[in-house]
């Protein structure tokens, strides 16, 4: 839709801390985004699998840059590098394991 179509779409799971981490960064950077909620069972996440090749969330699609990626640490690093003020890439050293 024209008036309300943010370039960033976040695929998320309700109450998933890794997803909330990405949400916090989106808020911190004052970025508009659209949330798409998927279900806890990985087998029900074909929409995510088609996008990223994996069924884990969080995952984002950024139409601005053509980027599609998963894993919260990578996403946070990407968002800060792309939209943050200056280089704040040290967050990328966070571990990326244990995603939902």
């Amino acid at each position: 839709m024209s008036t309300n179509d943010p370039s960033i779409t976040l695929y998320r799971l309700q109450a998933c801390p890794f997803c909330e981490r990405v949400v916090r960064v989106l808020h911190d950077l004052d970025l508009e985004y659209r949330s798409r909620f998927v279900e806890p069972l990985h087998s029900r996440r074909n929409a995510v699998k088609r996008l990223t090749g994996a069924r884990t969330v969080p995952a984002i699609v950024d139409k601005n840059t053509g980027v599609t990626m998963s894993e919260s640490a990578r996403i946070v690093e990407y968002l800060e590098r792309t939209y943050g003020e200056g280089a704040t890439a040290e967050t990328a050293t966070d571990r990326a394991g244990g995603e939902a």
Partner: protein
Amino acid sequence: MDLEFDIVDLPEDDHVAEGEQAPGFTRPLVNEEYWEDVPLAELLEQPPVVLVFHPMDGSFPATYVWNEIDDREWHEAATVVGVSIATPYAHKRLIEEEALADYRLYSDPGNDVAREYGVVHDLDGMAGIEEPRPAVFVLDGDGVVDYAWVAGEWPEFPPYDEVEDALASL
């Protein structure tokens, strides 16, 4: 022979009438893969839109209504979406179990949309729970109600042929 069951008459309602502007709203809209907040205005970009208010997922009328609509392939003629008080998770089950890939369902646990449209149904014996009355609204691309049907009895099912006539005459 007497049929010993009761069809309950519902009180008069004051629903959004034909020719009136349909109230706008935004709620999570569930498809077979995920849900996201979608304004009604977004659906109106692909008119006509059929809003189907139905009892909560899991009730037999919800199953009947969606099977009938699916059999009649309303999605070929319109953007057809449901509205009930069910959670997005329950909507996902209904879509999956009844194979409703061509339809999407709005989740409105607070029943505010039904209130806006004047189709509230207070449920007897379920304290604190109200849901929409069965109702169907056909909207044109400007969001004007072209056809409206609201149940006057409980249970009552939509007059499917009438809705199809309304769609055909748009």
